[in-house]
């Protein structure tokens, strides 16, 4: 979280002066150590960034030369129904999926932090699904959600609920994907768990002596103490959700991307479709930059709002 504060000196505003001989030598050695990153940054990050910015102002089909069109891609984008559908689907996952995941993983972390025997075993059980490869877990959930032979609707049937047709009903495909996400939230649980273990015991005991009940201790001590972790999980969760791709790509089975009825057409899926199925590379680059800006704005917004609800001890 303190990424920008993590360096030793102030870096802004920069101070310009002539380097001493020693500084020049140090700089040379430093740059030698940094060589792998420098080359990688220039070739695999900076160049593609600039190139995609250029493409985003052009019509580009990979084989033909660039055709400069100015802001046309961006204007077209905002008039493209699919763009708004994809944005809606993605925001659905960001607004519902991410907070739900945080809440559920916090709850699970509390369970796994209870002082009972066999906790090591329980922790493995909760964590294991998160290391199942994405493609495997998505396929597994397609099978679980299968309307004929799936176990989810069978289990729901035990308690008298007639389960929906998860994969082919546009209203239920995204909740199905959220469930898949919840299944694999072990990482978030572990991060919360380590946060819970850092919550000072003396603070909790002091609250108990003051007559605070379980809920009050949770709400007034534990939740504020882990709020920096919540912020971290929130921001990484939001960033990852805006780029949600592999699960949606696999989830459609043999159907078109976005099946059923474009309900799983997420932003990155539409971007992929534009770039590699319809070869509208310029248009897709414009989409990528809009995505970048959305992510930046969301992150900064969250950091800004977070000042009010996060508590940094010490």
């Amino acid at each position, binding site marked *: 979280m303190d990424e920008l504060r993590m360096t030793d000196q102030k870096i802004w505003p920069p101070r310009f002066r002539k380097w001493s001989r020693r500084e020049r030598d*140090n700089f040379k050695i430093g740059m030698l*150590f*940094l060589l792998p990153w420098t080359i990688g940054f220039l070739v695999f990050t900076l160049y593609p960034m600039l190139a995609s910015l250029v493409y985003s102002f052009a019509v580009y089909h990979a084989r033909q030369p660039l055709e400069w069109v100015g802001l046309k891609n961006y204007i077209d984008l905002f008039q493209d129904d699919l763009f708004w559908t994809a944005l809606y689907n993605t925001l659905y996952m960001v607004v519902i999926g991410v907070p739900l995941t945080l809440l559920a993983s916090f709850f699970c972390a509390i369970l796994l932090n209870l002082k009972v025997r066999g906790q090591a075993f329980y922790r*493995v059980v909760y964590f294991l699904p998160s290391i199942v490869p994405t493609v495997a877990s998505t396929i597994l959930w397609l*099978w679980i959600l299968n309307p004929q032979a799936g176990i989810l609707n069978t289990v729901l049937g035990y308690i008298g609920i007639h389960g929906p047709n998860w994969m082919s009903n546009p209203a239920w495909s995204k909740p199905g994907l959220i469930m898949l996400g919840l299944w694999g939230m072990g990482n978030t649980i572990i991060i919360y768990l380590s946060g819970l273990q850092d919550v000072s015991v003396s603070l909790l005991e002091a609250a108990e002596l003051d007559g605070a009940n379980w809920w009050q201790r949770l709400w007034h001590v534990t939740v504020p103490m882990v709020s920096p972790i919540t912020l971290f999980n929130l921001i990484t969760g939001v960033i990852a959700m805006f780029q949600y791709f592999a699960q949606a790509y696999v989830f459609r089975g043999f159907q078109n991307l976005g099946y059923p009825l474009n309900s799983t057409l997420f932003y990155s899926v539409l971007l992929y479709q534009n770039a590699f199925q319809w070869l509208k590379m310029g248009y897709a680059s414009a989409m*990528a930059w809009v995505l970048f800006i959305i*992510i930046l704005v969301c992150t900064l917004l969250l950091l800004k709002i977070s000042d009010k609800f996060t508590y940094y001890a010490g």
Partner: protein
Amino acid sequence: MTTIPAQYPDPRLTQTEESRQRARRKNVRNFFKSLFSHALISFFGLFFLVPFLWMLITAFKSNEDVFHTPPRWLPYDNVRVEVNGQELPLYNVITPQGEKQLAAVKIVEGVGTFVDPQHPDRVVEYEIQQGETKIATPVMHVSFRWQNFPDAMNRASRPSVDASFWVYFKNSLIIAFFTIVGTLLSNAPVAYAFARLKFPGRDILFVIVLATMMLPYQVTMIPLYLFFNNFLHWGDTFLPIIVPAFFANAYDVFLLRQFFRTIPEEMCDAARVDGASEWQIFTQLVIPLSVPVLATVTVFTFLWAWNDFTGPLLFLTSPKNFTMALGLQDFQSQRTLVWNQLMAAATVFTIPIVVAFFFAQKTFIQGIKLTGSKE
């Protein structure tokens, strides 16, 4: 609920009857509290455990059992008997003489040819179904079909393709191996420079490193695709996936730097006084002290490379170059699905990671905490 742990406090401390009762009540309360905790953790644990088990159970099911409705919680298979040197499935058949167990030789268009296992020469034909009533139903028993695993691994993602899941598995291993090598070689020196070297411009460069974490892959994806395919002509090879790993990445640089900073500065200074060069300090002092964190990087790189879907999807086009992730997705996109084989392949895909997890559990958890929490 008959046994209550009888751990009474020391009798010398609990003199009165009243305090003894209080202690007993507390024990009872603690017992129910822990029982309730176990029940709660187990109940929600089912959500994580059952799908995982369902993958394994399905992987062992027979073709006849996969689409059985309602689904059965254990894998079932036909009971088979040997008749005239052939393994034949056993059926319960309602014959005019009453119900009999007969072996099915073949079932074509609703008409089954059956043979009595006791009298191999008596061959009879019955219609499987007459109106509403089923005449012949297969006899099933609980049986784990191990054959699904070789069947799944020996097949390709689609029938027309000349490859197999063994090839995909091998491709995944090759990519993971070189990605790990590249990551270890390239990130450590960079992280060392950011952690322990002092030179002008270091901090601004580090901010740039961290800023690249914010950049979504989608922004660089298209130019990289064109660069690798059209400029370097690396299309349909592993190179576009492996080569970038040799040029450091922000996450591992950050992780390693955080660790290198915990190595006492005085040790490096002492070595410097003794005339060691920065490269010597790095290779002979810092690296040997960093084995645990390098193990973390190795494990997570393996996890990431093994799991990666987008990279292979963009760059690998011919099935002989598919990775497990890609092969599995291709398999799944077929119209007719053999779910038991699909789950068997998914299980094989998952096993290396689960094995790695059980060997390096601490490393896993440590890595998540290192990347996931504040400094």
